[in-house]
């Protein structure tokens, strides 16, 4: 089995599981996983640039912001419909990526990373300065929902004809959930294909030895710009759509540096440059904390009154990050390479 087949199989499996559990998810979990899917798209978008070429970007949330605010504000103030706001947002993100790649190409290693950090910081100031329009840190509500009434009614009609009856709010949740499920599947498929193609091989080679790639007659700058554009496109697409799911432009979801860092964490945990690993990492990062919070609701049958685990609630984030560190300690390369390694050892399959 080639690496490409293996990755497609793992991706397919993940997508099927995410799709199959949908109807059984309690409402809270459905929301968590909806955002996990969105975040997985960000993480995969980060991975195709930074994971593959080794140019670590701390500022990918910038592309989310450019696209998200463009789409959201166009919708809020000019009443542009979704089919116009989302493409415009994505185009702006791609332009930002192009613009950004030019100076970025001159920088290496930590210098590159530090510059990427400046962009979202500057954008955050701008959003706050223009708070009258952007809503500043509070955000602004009233963006057209992704799942509009007309769409929901049509869906309801189809489902009723199939003999399935779902109440309104649940249907609304389903609609959003499966929309991002499809987005995740398509982005995952496209990026797995790209990362295992010749282009992916070159991006990987750039990470390992840029000079040797140049000596092989490859224009390194061209490939880096290409990776930038693809990455900005994917992350921007997620950002623009998220605005319509949230029905608001939220500062915390469009410009949080934590999210930017978490994209790196997701990719590293799953295996940098593996795409599917970044997707898993995305689920782990977004879902893991929620799992600990769920555990906090339980009572262990210890002692007469039972041992309440509610203390976990406050510590959930901290515990979760500690667990991630432990995980990184044992699987430095990330989950997917660990799994692929075991798989290869088991089957004695060599090469890629």
């Amino acid at each position, binding site marked *: 089995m080639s690496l490409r087949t293996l990755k497609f199989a793992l991706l397919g499996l993940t997508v099927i599981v995410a799709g199959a559990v949908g109807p059984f998810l309690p409402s809270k979990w459905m929301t968590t996983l909806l955002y996990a899917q969105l975040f997985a798209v960000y993480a995969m978008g980060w991975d195709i640039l930074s994971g593959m070429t080794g140019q670590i970007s701390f500022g990918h949330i910038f592309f989310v912001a450019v696209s998200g605010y463009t789409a959201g504000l166009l919708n809020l103030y000019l009443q542009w419909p979704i089919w116009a706001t989302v493409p415009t947002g994505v185009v702006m993100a791609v332009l930002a990526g192009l613009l950004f790649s030019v100076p970025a190409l001159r920088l290496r290693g930590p210098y590159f990373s530090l510059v990427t950090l400046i962009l979202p910081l500057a954008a955050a100031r701008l959003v706050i300065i223009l708070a009258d329009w952007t809503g500043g840190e509070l955000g602004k509500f009233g963006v057209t929902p992704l799942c509009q009434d007309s769409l929901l009614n049509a869906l309801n009609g189809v489902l009723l004809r199939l003999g399935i009856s779902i109440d309104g709010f649940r249907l609304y949740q389903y609609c959003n959930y499966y929309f991002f499920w499809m987005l995740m599947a398509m982005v995952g498929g496209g990026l797995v294909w790209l990362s295992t193609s010749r282009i992916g091989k070159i991006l990987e080679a750039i990470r*390992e*030895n840029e000079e040797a790639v*140049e000596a092989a007659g490859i*224009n390194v700058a061209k490939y880096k710009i290409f990776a930038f554009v693809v990455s900005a496109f994917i992350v921007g697409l997620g950002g623009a759509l998220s605005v319509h799911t949230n029905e608001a432009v939220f500062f915390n979801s469009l410009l949080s540096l934590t999210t930017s860092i978490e994209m790196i964490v997701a990719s590293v945990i799953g295996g940098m440059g593996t795409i599917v690993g970044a997707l898993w990492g995305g689920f782990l990062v977004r879902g893991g904390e929620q799992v600990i919070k769920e555990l906090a609701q339980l009572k262990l049958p210890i002692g007469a009154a039972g041992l309440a685990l509610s203390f976990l609630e406050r510590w959930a984030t901290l515990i979760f990050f500690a667990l991630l560190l432990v995980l990184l300690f044992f699987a430095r390369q990330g989950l997917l390479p660990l799994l692929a390694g075991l798989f290869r050892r088991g089957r004695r399959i*060599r*090469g890629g």
Partner: protein
Amino acid sequence: MALLHVENLRKSFGGLMAVKDLSFHVEPGEILGLIGPNGAGKSTVFNLIMGTITPDQGRILFKGRDITHWPTYKIVDAGVARVFQIARYFPRKTVYENVEISAIPNEIFVRSADPRAKTVESCVRTGLCTNEHCPGDDRCLCRSELPGMLPQGGLRRLELARAIGTDPELLLLDEPFAGLSHAEVDEISHLIASLRDEGQTIVLVDHNMRGVMRLVDRIVVLCFGEKIAEGTPEEVARNPQVQEAYLAGGGF
């Protein structure tokens, strides 16, 4: 017409004149030796040809085209490839995948020929992958081995394979025998001769004149960045200026 023309090339680093008004040419099908004591500016000449550094003055013509200010990848695509003295490879890619990168064309959107055949050819031609399954089959060692596992001679072969994979008309070899055992020197020099017999034009840099005498057709001798002699190996060896330069620089 000469394949490569170097005209009045000059490069100084601070106060040090590394290459001083150097002119030479390379005929198609020959092996030209660029010889000189350590610090004579041989590697600098290669860096100038490959566009790694730009000359202060002078120009470099390849097949009649001025490539002086071209970026490295473009020079490689035009048909010049270099084998580094210290191998520059992709440590986490297998030997086969290392060679494959050279066979992939510099095109993102154009669907081009499968790099597989080219990769296999480069591996076989340089003797990098030799057992019966190689390198088409997953059982071939090249498909699982990482470059870090190769001996010095193997690394040199890998460098050669990566260079040949770019389909060069001119191959620049930077000290191809440095750090090799006697047996490996014989093997690599055999390999270079066989490449020449297939019509490959080569420029070979070495500080050890005796080692390359039998291999090269013509020699250009550099000393402190200047050309002090040019001719057949016999002519050059008889040249008193060359003998002096080498004795002063530690003998040859």
